[in-house]
Every structure is written in structure tokens, then in C-alpha cells.
């Protein structure tokens, strides 16, 4: 006890010695001790210069819709999207914009160079109740031959729009076909990506991705068991989803042409309430392929004004087995194939430094569903028409007014489908603060 006390006192004395010495000897000339240009305050080990680029993006909207929230929720584009079965059971219920005021999200991004070899990038999406990781990935900086590796959780580079963050879209909402095949959040997966920029006089990029395949619209990973235990479908072993694409771009005078072709194929595990007693649920296991082509043409009139035409055509084939609960909780099983296509075409124009406007045509086109060698009678050729005008006071703030005439939503009653037309007027505000990196083309 005594020894400890003495050693502690000694230690304290040692620590205090420099301070005591400093106090006793008055400093003759303070300037002498300062190195020119060095900050005198702050810690010598400060790492504040290494703080990554941090930004916050806020998105809110006011929505008028001709359908009430309940009515809207009860409609779907049959065989493309689902009506949520029961509140809380089905995760696929997209967080749709309700009538009135919506706080859509706040997005927090972090980006920095890790070292000479890696970049790191993360996006957290924050809603009122949930703090979620939208993306977090590294990419390599110094691989030879134009190769780049990316790993983590990220938005797939499938197609043109998939990779773009919500706040960079030209319209408030995702095109119908993307929502049908990948959902509101697009194809966002855990996995790895390898891209190659071919050393040519024009832009040519090849890429491949190996992904977990969690996407609940077309893929899915979790197996299921029917109530009677007869049907047991195992979880998938990852990786389950493979994506490949080719993108090319060239300039014709003042016009940029960007074209791409993409394909994704993976195992499908979709469970829509099978294994829940008292619900006439169903589930699908099998394989799904989504393929698409995209074309963007952007013409610059001058330094400020441009006209941009962008379109994508997507095709999906689902091939598998459909399991269905009947009222007696017995399971039926039938083969099912879906051949579906959809497209969107949008024209946007920047008319002045702060003003943009645009129009979009959406279509869920082919809807050919066969089960048990019978073609199901489901609606097809479901369109939506949109128009928008934007005021961007600076590149960090945006006000957008959009109108949608949505003819893609149906309500099922006793096997018959009735169209519910939804007119929507949306006023959106999007603001960004902090260090947010510039966007790619």
C-alpha cells in the first residue's frame, strides 16, 4: 500500500516535471519557439485533415393523389407487382409516398481515399424510424490494364438507371419496369464487381458482378416450408445472382450517345405468405433472367442548355414452380413461366441555368404468364405518363413539380381485374449540404 502510494507520487511528479519546469523558467521570447507557418493551437496529432467527404441530402415531398392511401395500397400491376397481403407480413410493401406531406429520406454519404490502393464509399439512408445502410463498398485505384474491382454492398451497374442514386433521378419516382423487376430500391446487393475499360478510341466498358441475390422482386435467398411440411425449399447458397453488361459511348458532334446491354440471372425464392395459417399464400422457386438494353442521347446546344433522350427496354423470364396454399392448408404445385417486358422513355431539357423540364412514358408491356400449360388472363400494356418541371437555385438545391397519370394499377375481385386510375401531383424538395462528389454522366 505504502509502496504503491510512493510510486504513484513519483510518477505524478515525473509527469508534472516539464510543466513545473516551464512555469519556473519564464520564456524570454515566445516567437523563438514558434516555427513559421505552423499552427500554434491544436493537437500535434490532429487527424482532422483526414476527415472523409461527408454530405447530407434531404428529400421531402407533398403528394396529391386521386386514390386514397388504402385504395392505392390495394392496387397493383398484376403479375408484375404484388398487393401486400397483410400489414406487416410482407416486406415487399414498398414505402410508397402517402397523400400529403412526406419525409422521404435523409441520405448521409461518406467518401474518401483509403490509401493508394483503395477508395471507400458509404451511403446511409435515414428515414423517420430506420437508419439503413444503402451502400458501402470499396473500389480499387491502381489495378493495371483498366481493371477495377469493387466489393461490398452496392447498386448494381445493370442498365442505365440502376446505379444512380435517388436524388440524381430526373423524375420523382423509379420507372414502372424497374419497380416491377427490382423494386423501389433498384438492384442493390452484396457482392463483388469487376469492370474493364477497354483501351479504345471510344468508351467501351465490360463488367461482371457476382451478387448475393436478395432482391425480393425477382430473386430472393430465403427458402420456405409449407404448413403441412410437404414442401421444403432450401435457402440459396450465395452467390446466387450473376450480372454482366457492356456499355459503350461516343460523341457525334455535340451529341453524346451512350448505349448498353445488360443481363442478370439468378435463383428465385419468393415467398408470399406460404406457411402462414389461414392465408391463401403462395411461393415461387426457380430461376429468373432479366435482360435489358439502354440508350441515352444528350445534345448540348451550348454551355448551359441541353436536350436528353433516355430509354430502357427490359425483359424478364421467370421459370419455376408455383406453390399455393388452399383453404384447407394443403399445398398445390404447378410449373410457372412468366415472360414480361417493360420500358420507359424520357425526354429532359435544360432550358436555362436554373430550369429543367421533362416528360416520361412508362409501359409494362408483355405480360405472358403460363402455369400448367395455360396462359393466364392478366392485363398487359399498362402505361403511365409523367411530366415534370424543376427549379434548381444552385446545384445543391432543387424544387420539382411532377404530374403522373398512372394507368398501371389494377384491383382484383374474384379473378377479374379492374383498372384504378391514379392522378398524382408531387411537389418535391431536395437539398444537399457538405462535400458531395460530382456525378458521372
Amino acid at each position, binding site marked *: 500500500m505504502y509502496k504503491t502510494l510512493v510510486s504513484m507520487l513519483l510518477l505524478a511528479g515525473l509527469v508534472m516535471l516539464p510543466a513545473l519546469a516551464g512555469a519556473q523558467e519564464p520564456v524570454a521570447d515566445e516567437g523563438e519557439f514558434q516555427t513559421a507557418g505552423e499552427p500554434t493551437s491544436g493537437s500535434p496529432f490532429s487527424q482532422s485533415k483526414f476527415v472523409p467527404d461527408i454530405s447530407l441530402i434531404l428529400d421531402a415531398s407533398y403528394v396529391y393523389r386521386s386514390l386514397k392511401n388504402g385504395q392505392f395500397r390495394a392496387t397493383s400491376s398484376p403479375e408484375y407487382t404484388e398487393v401486400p397481403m397483410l400489414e406487416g407480413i410482407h416486406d415487399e410493401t414498398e414505402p410508397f409516398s402517402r397523400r400529403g406531406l412526406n419525409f422521404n429520406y435523409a441520405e448521409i454519404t461518406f467518401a474518401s481515399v483509403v490509401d493508394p490502393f483503395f477508395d471507400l464509399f458509404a451511403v446511409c439512408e435515414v428515414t423517420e424510424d430506420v437508419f439503413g445502410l444503402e451502400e458501402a463498398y470499396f473500389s480499387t485505384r491502381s489495378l493495371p490494364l483498366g481493371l477495377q474491382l469493387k466489393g461490398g454492398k452496392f447498386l448494381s451497374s445493370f442498365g442505365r438507371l440502376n446505379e444512380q442514386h435517388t436524388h440524381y433521378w430526373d423524375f420523382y419516382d423509379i420507372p414502372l419496369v424497374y419497380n416491377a423487376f427490382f423494386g423501389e430500391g433498384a438492384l442493390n446487393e452484396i457482392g463483388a464487381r469487376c469492370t474493364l475499360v477497354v483501351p479504345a478510341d471510344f468508351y467501351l466498358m465490360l463488367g461482371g458482378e457476382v451478387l448475393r441475390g436478395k432482391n425480393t422482386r425477382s430473386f430472393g435467398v430465403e427458402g420456405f416450408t409449407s404448413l403441412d411440411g410437404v414442401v421444403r425449399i432450401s435457402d440459396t447458397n450465395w452467390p446466387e445472382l450473376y450480372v454482366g453488361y457492356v456499355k459503350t459511348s461516343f460523341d457525334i458532334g455535340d451529341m453524346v450517345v451512350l448505349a448498353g446491354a445488360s443481363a442478370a440471372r439468378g435463383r428465385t425464392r419468393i415467398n408470399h405468405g406460404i406457411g402462414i395459417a389461414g392465408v391463401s399464400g403462395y411461393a415461387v422457386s426457380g430461376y429468373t433472367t432479366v435482360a435489358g438494353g439502354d440508350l441515352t442521347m444528350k445534345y448540348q446546344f451550348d454551355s448551359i442548355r441541353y436536350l436528353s433522350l433516355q430509354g430502357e427496354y427490359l425483359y424478364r423470364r421467370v421459370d419455376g414452380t408455383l406453390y399455393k396454399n388452399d383453404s384447407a392448408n394443403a399445398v398445390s404445385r404447378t410449373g410457372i413461366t412468366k415472360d414480361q417486358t417493360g420500358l420507359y422513355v424520357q425526354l429532359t431539357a435544360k432550358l436555362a441555368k436554373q430550369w429543367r423540364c421533362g416528360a416520361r412514358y412508362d409501359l409494362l408491356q408483355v405480360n405472358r404468364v403460363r402455369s400448367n400449360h395455360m396462359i393466364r388472363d392478366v392485363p398487359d400494356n399498362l402505361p403511365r405518363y409523367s411530366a415534370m418541371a424543376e427549379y434548381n437555385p444552385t446545384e445543391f438545391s432543387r424544387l420539382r413539380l411532377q404530374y403522373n397519370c398512372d394507368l398501371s394499377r389494377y384491383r382484383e375481385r374474384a379473378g377479374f381485374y379492374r383498372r384504378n386510375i391514379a392522378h398524382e401531383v408531387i411537389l418535391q424538395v431536395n437539398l444537399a449540404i457538405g462535400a458531395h462528389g460530382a456525378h*458521372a454522366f
Partner: protein
Amino acid sequence: MKRIAAFVALTLLFLTPAFAARMKVMTTYPYIASIVEQIGRDKVRVQALARGDFDPHTIMPKPSFIAKLRRGELLIINGAQLEIGWLPPLLRQANNPAINPGSRGFLDLSRYVKLIDVPTSISRAQGDIHPDGNPHYYLDPHNIPPLARGIAAKLAELDSANAGYYAANRDEFLRSWSAKQAEWDRKLASLRGKRVIEYHKNFDYLLRSYGIILAGTVEPLPGIPPTSRHIENLERVIGHTKVHRIFQDVYNPDRASRFLSKKYDIPLVRLPHDVGAVREAEGIYSLFDEMVRRLAQ
């Protein structure tokens, strides 16, 4: 097997810069390309990404730029955050380690000049400000020689076999530039003490060099288009002091400048901000020749 090895070795040899016929130099803006041409001449193949008649802040990041950057051996930028709105995603996509910031094949020219208007506090309430200072430093002919010296040093570093060649070209360039400089100084001497209005703070380095006083900008804040209230304020300034000229760049709308010019009978001068901004500005010399000609008119 031997044949394959020989083939691989040969291919590798040809891929090394030393054996490439000309060094592939990419520059962000045409004026840099023009200086590189003066110094590298037939030992380099230089290409500028941006167009000289467009707003240098908001160049569209075309994917075709990625293909060019992918194959570049040296990238020379203006720096001072002028390229921040368009170059970073292109560099990331091109994924060319030879020209990434920090590597030998990357040169930021802003380090060779002293930037002015470095803000003491940073807030975007001040508009589209540049934290490092005004990035349009190259629009003063006095700032071109240090850039030429920096470029020559970088070319010599990457291609040491031709170091003497680059040094000789540099010296020749500096000699003829100083002759031109004397001519331009003579022609612009009469502008000393005159007050001018400019659209964007593009020509501040030039104004400072020649003792021209900036009475105001047509933009209320950098990057923000003119508002009627701001124009009223400018009119008050014009009422108090004699404004000699209004400077307008070639890419921004000139409606407000024309209005002021007409109402108060102040000549409107459309100044090139880069090589290619106007037809006459074909290279780094003719850019300043034309600028001085329009200023002295």
C-alpha cells in the same frame, strides 16, 4: 514457348512510355494544351477534354473523356477546384493509376501561382465559392511563365531522355512570351485606374495586374444568375462612379449586361476566357492578343 516469351517481352517494351512515339498528355482545358504544345512540340501528343467556349465550371463529364483518360500518360489540370464539378468521377471511372492525383503523371498547375481572393470563411451562402481562391489565375499573362516552367519540368521528369529538348523549348517560349508581355503591358497601360463591371469573377487576376478597379459583378454571387434587385444595386454603383467597360464571358447569358450597357451607354466587351472561346483565340498567344485587342478598343 520462346516465341511467346519474345512476343510478350516486345509487347511490354512497346507499352512502356520510353518506346511510345509520343507522350500522351491530357489536359482539362484548351489553354493548357496550347502551352504543352509550345514546350513538348513533336515529342508529345496533347489533347484537351473541355471545349474552350463552354463554362469551365460545368463541363459535361462525357464517357468519351473516360476513354481518353484511360490511355493518358500525363494529366495536367488547372486545379484550385475549377474541375471539381466534372473531373473526379471521370478519373474514378477511367481508373488509370498513372494519372491519378498524387502520382507522377498528374500535374496541378495552380501550385505554381499565388491565388487571390482566398476566402477566410467558407459557406455556400456565398454562392459557388472556391475554398482555395479564385481559380481563373491563367487569365493574366503574367501567370503563364510559371505554368510553362512547371509543365517543362514535368515533361522532363517523365521523359528524361528529352529533358534538354523541353528546356530549350521552354526558354524559347519564355523569351518570346516576355516580348509579347511588354507589348500587352503597353497596350493596357491606359486602363490603369479605370472601373469596370464583369459578369463572373473571371478576370480578377488581369484587373489586379493592370490596376483596373472592379466596380461590381453582374452575378450577385458566384454561379448565381443576376436578379433584378442585384441589377438595381449595380445601377446605383454605376450612378455614383464612372464605369468604363462591362466584361462579359462567352458562355453566360448576356441579357443583364446588355441592358446595363444600353441604359448607361457603357461599352460591353465580350472577352474570351480560354483558347477556342472566340474564333480568333486559336492558341495561348492569340488568346491574349485577342483579349488585349478587345480590352484596348
